[in-house]
């Protein structure tokens, strides 16, 4: 298609072979012929190929320009692609053809020629006010990411979002999401996100760090009670009531009932029930109970209790000798027997309260056996106490107990049990237990003689 003045290049394709000046001369013969019809004379020698091509393009002599590129063997990007891009940009301005036709024609001519950005052509179309054409052209752009900026400009935000997600470029998705946030009203914004899980997830991440309140709204929108529950639990830890408590106490006011935290936790409980997550709801209810109790303990004993785990709370109570209170918690929170016993003997040993430990050991049958009593006494370097419990250990574990206490050899010899003797021998170190080793070896030899 020719849209300007000037003759057609004579069909000298056959002659236009070869390289170098042999190529240029015939090509330029055409130009010189054309030159003569121009208003202002062109001086070939002073023109570079680029400028020449530009002038041709300006005059819309696209086929001529393309032929010249091809004969001069310019790389596609330098030559043909540029021309085609110019041509396409011109084409989109043609108001007489329909969008469909123009888009099709352009695609036909351009195909997949490298170096052509369909998005640029589409941008030009948009600038001419042909939005639909622009969108059709964008469809040809192979890289989804390239389509996004123009789509945003054209206010096709939802499409922009899909394309961004398709491109796999997380950063691009972020850009679009944040752009949408400013562009759309809240309701529409959330609705758009609902349909795009990837974008939603990214936005949630952003909110988690930057705008926590929005997170709540997002979850509300979604009726996601589980996450709302988590949200409230998380908020409850972000508040620091402990300092507030002491400030109040110091000023003589009754300490605030850490309402901020408990309030948040109560909200969490409600959400967890709505989410049918009984476990989380009960656990959080227990936590509220514990916090309230800890507050009282702090008041009563003037020591920090808030924010300790249940285990540590009970442990600290025993360490300070408040056994009745510890028992109370044991019952109220349904602490399993095994745990309570482990806890108690550790704490008592730490405190050095061997008397209490003995009393406790006799209070009822130990759910953890008596080996732990031995272990913990030995850990605190109290062999004397350990010896008290060793005989109460079950038979299978007795040798182990005696090893710990250091009179294992005797027990094994007493039992006339070879396995036990071997076990004890394995625990002996050559340097310190020579006497014991000898004793055992003699006993073993005697056994084997039988």
């Amino acid at each position, binding site marked *: 298609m020719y849209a300007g003045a000037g003759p057609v290049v004579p069909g000298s394709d056959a002659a236009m072979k070869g390289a170098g000046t042999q190529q240029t001369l015939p090509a330029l013969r055409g130009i010189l012929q054309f030159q003569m019809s121009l208003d202002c004379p062109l001086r070939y020698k002073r023109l570079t190929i680029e400028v020449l091509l530009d002038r041709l393009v300006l005059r819309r002599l696209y086929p001529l320009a393309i032929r010249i590129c091809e004969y001069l063997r310019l790389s596609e990007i330098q030559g043909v692609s540029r021309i085609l891009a110019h041509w396409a940009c011109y084409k989109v301005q043609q108001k007489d053809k329909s969008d469909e036709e123009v888009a099709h024609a352009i695609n036909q001519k351009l195909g997949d020629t490298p170096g052509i950005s369909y998005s640029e052509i589409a941008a030009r179309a948009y600038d001419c006010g042909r939005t639909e054409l622009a969108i059709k052209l964008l469809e040809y752009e192979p890289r989804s990411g390239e389509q996004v900026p123009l789509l945003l400009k054209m206010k096709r935000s939802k499409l922009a979002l899909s394309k961004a997600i398709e491109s796999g470029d*997380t950063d691009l998705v972020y850009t679009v999401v944040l752009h949408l946030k400013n562009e759309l009203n809240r309701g529409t914004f959330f609705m758009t996100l609902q349909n795009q899980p990837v974008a939603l997830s990214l936005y949630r991440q952003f909110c988690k760090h930057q705008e926590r309140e929005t997170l709540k709204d997002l979850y509300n929108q979604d009726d996601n009670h589980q996450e709302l529950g988590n949200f409230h639990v998380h908020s409850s830890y972000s508040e620091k009531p402990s300092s507030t408590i002491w400030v109040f106490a110091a000023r003589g006011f009754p300490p605030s009932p850490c309402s901020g935290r408990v309030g948040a936790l109560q909200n969490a409980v409600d959400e967890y029930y709505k989410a049918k997550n009984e476990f989380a709801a009960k*656990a959080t209810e227990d936590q509220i109970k514990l916090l309230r109790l800890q507050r009282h303990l702090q008041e009563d004993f003037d020591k920090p209790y808030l924010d300790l785990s249940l285990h540590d709370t009970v442990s600290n109570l025993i360490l300070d000798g408040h056994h009745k209170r510890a028992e109370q918690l044991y019952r109220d929170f349904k602490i399993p027997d095994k745990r309570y016993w482990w806890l108690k003997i550790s704490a008592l040993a730490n405190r050095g309260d061997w008397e209490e430990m003995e009393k406790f050991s006799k209070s009822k049958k130990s759910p953890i056996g008596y080996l732990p009593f031995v272990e913990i006494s030995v850990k605190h370097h109290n062999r004397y106490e350990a010896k008290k419990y060793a005989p109460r250990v079950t038979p299978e574990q007795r040798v182990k107990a005696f090893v710990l206490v250091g009179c294992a050899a005797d027990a094994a010899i007493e039992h006339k049990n070879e396995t036990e003797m071997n076990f004890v021998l394995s625990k002996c170190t050559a340097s310190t237990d020579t006497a014991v080793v000898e004793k055992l070896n003699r006993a073993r030899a005697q056994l084997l003689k039988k």
Partner: protein
Amino acid sequence: MSPLDRIANVSILKQHEVDKLYKVESRPALSSSDQFCFLVRPRIRTMRYIADIVNADKMSGRSRKYKIIFSPQKFYACEMVLEEEGVFGDVTCDEWSFYLLPLDEDIISMELPEFFRDYFLEGDHRWINSVARALQLLNSLYGPFGKVYGIGRCAKMSYELWRDLEEESEGDSQGRKPEIGNIFLMDRDTDYVTALCSQVVYEGLVDDTFRIKCGSVDFGPDVTSSDKSIKVLLNAQDKVFSQIRNEHFSSVFGFLSQKSRNLQAQYDRRRGMDIKQMKNFVSQELKGLKQEHRLLSLHIGACESIMKKKTKQDFQEMIKAEHSLLEGFDIRESTSFIEEHIDRQVSPTESLRLMCLLSITENGLIPKDYRSLKTQYLQSYGPEHLLTFHNLKRMGLLTEQSAGETLTAVESKVSKLVTDRAAGKITDAFNSLARKSNFRALSKKLGLIPRVDGEYDLKMPRDMAYVFSGAYVPLSCKIIEQVLERRGWLGLEEVVRLLNGNEFSVSDSAAEDNPAWESQRVVLAVFLGGCTFSEMAALRFLGKERGCKFIFLTTAITNSARMMEAAIEAKA
């Protein structure tokens, strides 16, 4: 040690007029310098830290120059935050596309520990780009890669993105002799079990006990037997370390003792020397011997420290429980062991790890245990761990066997959220809901539990199971072994199904035409989400057996503790 220390340590930086180094996220930096430069990863938290500093300066009337260098790239969200905090105009931003840090002669790390949490917990794909660029870089230096194998959604996405980058870049890889012939990409969640096991090869144990950072470890006074701690670089340059790093711990102490004796013998040689020999000895050999002596005593000290810690924590009992879980018997006993472990407050991360191991090997805990173990944990360590359990559930690490909810119900929930086009890019968070573990079936199919008559010889191991005392062949390594052997996934269809699909195998025909024999033997094993030292030891062993060399590329070094820490919601 941080990646920066491996590239430019403090003295080099000081030579370039850096006054002082501060760590981001501890106390705010108080300094009188009038230029601040922040070298950071693109995180919103960090942006707020920087904004706080800038705003504080503004309030006190100080004016300084601020530059932020984002590594490996800047994210739009960061700019947004800087804008929202009102400091965007006060700072200049730059990018440092730093992707790969060689930690050793066969280990390359991307130093992205956050990859694990970001991708597998949050479903955030932000780092896939970095992985693709890292692959592109390696390809341009050592490629073109002949065969590409992979399994896992992230592996697939990274591969596809990398291919797109290659197409766009018009790089010319023709005419270059390839040095890496094969590459294998694997998602961490293909095999969580291995990462959760206690490590017993020396390097793994050191990592578990002391935590190796960027290839370097801090040995405290209990190891150095003095009152100082020292930083030691652990790599193939350390002659002592390189000989013991892959060995099972039981062999290590004996080996070190033997070496000590040899060393002593060498020292003793000087008794019979004349002046000339002595001079020679002092100038040539003494330094080397002293160096070896130093290294030996360090490693012996480390071994002693490790053994002390292990006996304290009933290591033997725990290993027994672990092996039972791997093999699949005495499950009730193991569960009781775990419960006791929690009750006795031995270690929070260890308890969590054992719970996850139980869950994955058993395809979820039975509801009674799920409730009970969680309750015990909350009582021991605090109720904020409700959120921790939520995280672990999302990642598929600690789940409940759901009798009522069949797989199809979950699938339909997931499919409601998927649109056609976005199907490929759906977040993994949803994927893990629908994902089953299938460990037992895989174990049977691939023969991961060796049947041994008599004792398993740990000194002269005969298969990769030695890295776990002969009890278990690491699943990830076994998969790699099988795929390399078969040059593809043919014959492994059932295994692929049990691994939830997403396998691929691609050959670059151009590279196949000229098989440079040397490069065919080199395999780049890429772990997306972290790689453990045990897996590296196992694959090095495999390499020796099969006559190929493994190079490891990982998003970060990992172990069970790091994985658990990624899931734990700590109090603010």
